[in-house]
């Protein structure tokens, strides 16, 4: 077949190739660096550009050398481009789409004229790690130097305008997950499916087939058969343009599914699916790794010039995308792949000037460059110089063992084959087959794959299938000259040798010092060359030298895909519609969204103090406790005593952890002989439930107690203020609310606003006469609205958290975790009166017993002498210039008292009432404040409360 350049699209486009993936009926246009080009559907960005004669796609990181195609695959380091607002797109992988705006990214000011390429000249001074050796002095100049260094950062650009797109996730449970859709992967998948397994077959490229896709007619025939068989097999789900990115504990496997332009909905669902990428999280019964082999570059001078490429790149360009990679080629071949590349090139009309056979000692010494840096010729080992614009190398393979290493395996170097092989230290549910595992004819590899697929489906031992053989291969890593090892990091073999000589002479130190293998391809192309060069420099063998650690992800994953949809549960009370309708300012309190206030918290305070207010306290934790042993549990959890609580009564309690630190507080009431309800703080609800369960299940499984969380089974409303009795009385006919019948710290059950099954407690955080009512949650909104409606003439109003905080501070009630911290034990919080050391046991008891003899700060009420100054919370209390002797934990201006009030910690010798302490304000003013007799600033005797 003679090759001609296709007239319509592109100057290097070949006529139709038998294995091509182009849709010649679907031309498309796209732009590159601001200019418009034509290509076909099926082209990658790079094949489309090459077809148009563009062969330089980026500039290297440090020296700004021009870069072209190397591997023509996802890994290709020089083909990273910007697409719209997406940085670092792999141009040799990503398919072109109509209208795509592609730009080079590591250039300044332009790809053709790149000012930073001047670095090439000074490059000899900028060896690896140069920055460690300079800019130390003068110290004050370092920040300026740093700004210069930063400008050399590689990569594309992000945009602040990029919307957080639609990224999806799903879970999967395949019996067998196959990584790699080459012949081995497909054969393994088919055998596993035949054995009855549900199989997930994942292929990184857009199509199944692996290397068969760019192979000869016989290989394409096998490919067609395999593809048809996979399509027909029940139980195989195929994901293409998808990559297995990680294998984690217990075969938890991450698969990144990328958009596939040929599939309905991009492969994500019905047409029009908005999904950009999807992370599939698979719990696989077995993982079969059939990742094939990655072709390894050869290190010699000029090996990074555009025009020097791997044999697989040349074959892919010709056979998949019908692109002529050059006009005159030299091929360095150490294996069949190189020979096949030479044949392919000849077939399509590339003049093959020489096939240099490395198996018989042939070598390439340097690639010569034209003025623009691209390839103009090669110098061979025998000194011959040949003109060419294409140099193809086929010097061997690297096994991409990354997934196996994540599973605990260590690659082992096989000198005969000149590559690392899987080490065989795999967990029982991970299998390997195909080229990554060994050599053989296509038939032999597929037979092995079938055996492995069948074994994996059964959960059998990997070793039961006969192993693949290992063929000899010449060891070619670095030639006679120095060249590029890590293309994306711009690290040369000279850098590596220098680093080794400086003492960075283990592969891990060398990696960190030179940054070799730390770039976007993570060493898949580079590691083995780096290891070989280090081995030569130190005289240690390659096996002794070892590789760096392979880590997830196998291929980079977008943050969008990892993040997925935001799943942040939020919780709302039944009264939320009312709050929203009435302009409540939302307060985020953990998962709960609560009304902070409705516009004027001081006015809300006044309403409560003078009339009556209602507040939604639904998030208060509520645990239904039943069983004969509840008093035992209460005695264990709380620091105070519970044995004698009468039916109809409630009591306040404080819980400490085993280290004596205050954990939570709340009231617990006894509703019936064997039924109790414990309330907890809103944020402590889950913790206390778990705390109770842990005691019951681990220490006292014999106790008969059932704990049921009922926090949101009830809408909780506190009705507070002098008119609260009147208001509640209007809605509740079946409970005598008089002070005599229903006293302070009592609980009653009854019907409110027509809703039966409510209970009400006479308690209150605000210090006013108040009733905390708990109504079946579905009726919460009804009761809330009814309270407001029927109390209109009493001046009832809703109040929010802020008003409640002001009032509780007026009353001196502490809030756990605000007025206590991670080390505050009960006595420090002023709870001496509550702690009952004569109880046999309770959580944290020993610590509290010992605390009495210790030095600890005490929580006290404080008032600045100047009542107009409100010291911000966290203001420190100081003695002398800087000695900290306490701090303000809560502070507000009290609208009721018309002055500032506080709670705070002070050293014990300052805790006596009347002591004047110095508060240091954030603005550095020092103000005097008086330690008060009580925590409460308002109605310390609780007259109003009991009223």
């Amino acid at each position: 077949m003679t090759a001609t350049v296709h007239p319509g699209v592109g100057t290097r486009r070949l006529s139709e190739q038998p294995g091509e993936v182009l849709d010649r009926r679907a031309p498309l246009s796209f732009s590159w660096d601001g200019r418009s080009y034509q290509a076909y559907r099926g082209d990658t960005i790079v094949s489309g550009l090459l077809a148009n004669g563009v062969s330089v796609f980026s500039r290297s990181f440090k020296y700004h050398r021009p870069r072209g195609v190397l591997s023509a695959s996802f890994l290709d380091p020089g083909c990273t481009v910007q697409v719209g607002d997406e940085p670092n797109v792999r141009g040799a992988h990503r398919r072109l789409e109509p209208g795509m705006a592609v730009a080079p990214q590591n250039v300044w000011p332009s790809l053709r004229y790149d000012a930073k390429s001047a670095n090439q000249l000074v490059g000899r001074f900028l060896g690896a790690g140069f920055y460690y050796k300079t800019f130390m002095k003068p110290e004050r100049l370092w920040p300026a130097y740093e700004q210069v260094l930063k400008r050399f950062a590689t990569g594309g650009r992000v945009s602040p305008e990029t919307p957080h797109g639609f990224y999806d996730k799903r879970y999967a449970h395949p019996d067998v997950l196959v990584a790699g859709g080459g012949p081995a992967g497909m054969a393994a998948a088919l055998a596993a499916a035949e054995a009855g397994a549900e199989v997930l077959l994942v292929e990184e490229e857009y199509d199944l087939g692996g290397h068969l896709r760019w192979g000869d007619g016989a290989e394409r025939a096998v490919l067609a058969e395999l593809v048809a068989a996979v399509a027909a097999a029940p139980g195989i789900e195929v994901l293409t343009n998808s990559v297995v990115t990680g294998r984690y504990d217990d075969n938890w496997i991450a698969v990144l599914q990328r958009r596939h332009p040929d599939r309905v909905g991009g492969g994500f669902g019905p047409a029009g699916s908005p999904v950009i990428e999807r992370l599939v999280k698979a719990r696989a019964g077995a993982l079969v790794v059939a990742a094939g082999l990655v072709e390894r570059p050869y290190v010699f001078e000029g090996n990074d010039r555009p025009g020097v490429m791997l044999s697989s790149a040349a074959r892919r360009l010709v056979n998949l995308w019908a692109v002529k990679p050059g006009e005159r080629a030299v091929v360095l071949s150490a294996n069949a792949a190189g020979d096949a590349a030479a044949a392919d090139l000849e077939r399509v009309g590339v003049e093959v000037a020489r096939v240099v056979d490395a198996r018989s000692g042939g070598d390439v010494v340097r690639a010569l460059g034209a003025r623009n840096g691209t390839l103009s010729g090669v110098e061979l080992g025998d000194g011959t110089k040949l003109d060419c614009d294409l140099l193809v190398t086929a010097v061997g393979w690297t096994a991409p063992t990354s997934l196996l290493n994540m599973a605990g395996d260590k690659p082992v170097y096989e000198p005969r084959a000149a590559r690392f092989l899987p080490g065989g230290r795999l967990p029982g549910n991970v299998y390997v087959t195909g080229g990554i595992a060994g050599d053989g004819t296509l038939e032999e590899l597929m037979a092995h794959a079938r055996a492995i697929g069948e074994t994996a489906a059964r959960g059998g031992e990997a070793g039961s299938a006969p192993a693949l053989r290992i063929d000899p291969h010449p060891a070619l890593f670095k030639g006679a000259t120095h060249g590029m090892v890590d293309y994306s990091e711009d690290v040369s073999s000279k850098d590596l040798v220098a680093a080794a000589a400086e003492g960075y002479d283990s592969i891990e130190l060398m990696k960190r010092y030179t940054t070799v293998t730390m770039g976007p391809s993570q060493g898949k192309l580079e590691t083995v060359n780096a290891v070989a060069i280090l081995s030569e420099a130190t005289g240690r063998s390659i096996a002794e030298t070892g590789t760096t650690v392979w880590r997830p992800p196998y291929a980079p994953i977008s943050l969008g895909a990892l993040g997925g949809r935001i799943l942040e549960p939020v919780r709302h009370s039944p009264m939320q519609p009312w709050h929203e309708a009435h302009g409540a300012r939302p307060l985020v309190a953990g998962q709960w969204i609560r009304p902070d206030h409705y516009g004027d918290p001081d006015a809300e305070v006044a309403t409560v103090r003078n009339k009556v207010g209602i507040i939604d306290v639904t998030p208060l934790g509520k645990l239904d406790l039943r069983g004969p042993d509840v008093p035992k549990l209460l005695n264990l959890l709380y620091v105070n005593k519970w044995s004698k609580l009468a039916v109809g009564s409630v009591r306040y309690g404080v819980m400490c952890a085993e280290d004596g630190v205050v954990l939570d507080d709340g009231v617990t009431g006894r509703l019936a002989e064997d039924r109790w309800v414990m309330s907890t703080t809103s944020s402590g609800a889950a913790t206390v439930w778990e705390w109770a369960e842990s005691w019951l299940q681990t220490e006292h499984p014999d106790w008969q107690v059932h704990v049921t969380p009922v926090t949101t089974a009830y809408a909780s409303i506190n009705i507070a203020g002098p008119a609260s009795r009147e208001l509640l009385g209007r809605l509740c006919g079946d409970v005598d609310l008089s002070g005599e019948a229903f006293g302070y710290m009592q609980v009653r059950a009854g019907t409110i606003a027509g809703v039966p099954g409510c209970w009400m407690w006479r308690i209150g955080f605000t210090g006013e006469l108040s009733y905390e009512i708990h109504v079946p949650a579905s009726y919460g909104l009804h009761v809330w609205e009814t309270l407001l409606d029927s109390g209109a003439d009493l001046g009832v109003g809703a109040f929010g958290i802020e008003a409640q905080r002001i009032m509780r501070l007026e009353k001196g009630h502490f809030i756990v975790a605000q007025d206590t911290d991670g080390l505050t034990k009960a006595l420090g919080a002023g709870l001496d009166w509550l702690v009952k050391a004569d109880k046999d046991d309770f959580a944290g008891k020993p610590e509290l017993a010992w605390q009495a003899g210790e030095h600890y700060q005490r929580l006290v009420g404080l008032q600045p002498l100047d009542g107009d100054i409100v010291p911000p919370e966290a203001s420190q209390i100081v003695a002398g210039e800087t000695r900290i002797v306490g701090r303000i934990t809560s502070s507000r201006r009290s609208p009721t008292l018309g002055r500032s009030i506080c709670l705070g910690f002070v050293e014990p010798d300052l805790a006596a009432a009347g002591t004047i302490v110095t508060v240091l304000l954030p603005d550095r003013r020092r103000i005097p404040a008086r330690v008060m007799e009580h925590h409460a600033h308002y109605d310390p005797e609780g007259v109003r409360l009991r009223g």
Partner: protein
Amino acid sequence: MARANGKLNGFAGGKPARYSALGLVRHGVVHGEWPRVWRQHELKSSYDVVIVGAGVHGLATAYYLALNHGVRRIAVVDRGYVGGGNSGRNTAIVRSNYLTPEGVRFYDRSVDLYEHLSADLNFNVMFSQRGHLTLAHSDASLRTMAWRAEVNKLEGIDSSVIGPEEIRKIVPYLDTSEHTRYPVLGALYHPPGGTIRHDAVNWGYARGADARGVEIHQQTEVLGIETAGGKVTGVRTDRGHISTPVVVNCTAGHATLLSDMVGVRMPVITHPLQAAVTEPVKVFLDAVVVSGTLHVYVSQTDRGELVFGASTDPYASYSMRGSLEFTEELAGHVLELMPAISKMRLLRQWAGLCDMTPDFSPIMGVTPVEGFLVDVGWGTYGFKAGPVAGETMAELIATGRTPEMIAPFDLARFAEGRLVGEKGAASVGH
């Protein structure tokens, strides 16, 4: 080892060449080789001090022992390579805006030392004081930030609480709108905080210590510690036995395994801590941004990658394999903070092993076994403390007296109930 002696081993004139820009040019022109950063040695049969762990703590301790106290016969042994533990895998955030006065003073001394370390070591450690922001998403965390700021200011640290307006100016990519799930209400801003090239610190200390006669032994694992009459007498390694009266445990995540060798119990649990980097993009983020509520922090290196950290793994483990859920949560939370970077890609994740203590403070000083000292419990935050820990541990070893600065961090505090209050403000640690 073909060239073990001769070229690869030892400085030409016994002194390291000074690094300088001029030196770079000279080496560039004449293609001379730089001398080794540190030398290789045969293991001797005895040393005055054996430091276990060639992380920043072990190396800095050796360096200051030699530098400040003239101690010479020091061996730093490590079962891997220099800086291969947490010191080589941390996110390299340095700051001093802690909560307790003792903590603030201690870390501030470290920042001081770091500020001059490049010059002192003649090795550029690239300390980048780009500013450090700890976001507050609730009034509770705003209160803790204020608390820290107040204590910090009293100790003379540049630290204050700033509002969303100012935050936006420092970090334009941050979503400071009110209607996010976790609105940004404010932040603790600490201008001298920043990042450092962690490897450079490790190598710089190693080079400096080596130049002062310290022997650094890589690939040397301690298998046992010998005692007689309650005193340390020697160390058993996989390369042979060493007699020594002093062993210093600087092994971070392996701290209890080493202490177990002499029967010293320590309240340390080893939790993996993971980190990750993205592919590089052009620099768009200057400051270090931390969110305790969202368990994540991020900075951008001069190379352009974002470096992410988070909270420790939820359960104790010695596994450094890492997990997918770490990256998922990380990305989800980062995108809540900076929704515009969803197209950046995560390049690599890794883990270290953190020695967590009950009060988020280290354990430093003597133990019940004479001659067995510890400098552990550095958890998720100990890289920044390397210099000061080295300086104070060296003083303790050389003088036998516990410096006042580290007295609060003694091992006995747990049995005596004197925990340090850093837990009070424990957010995402680093």
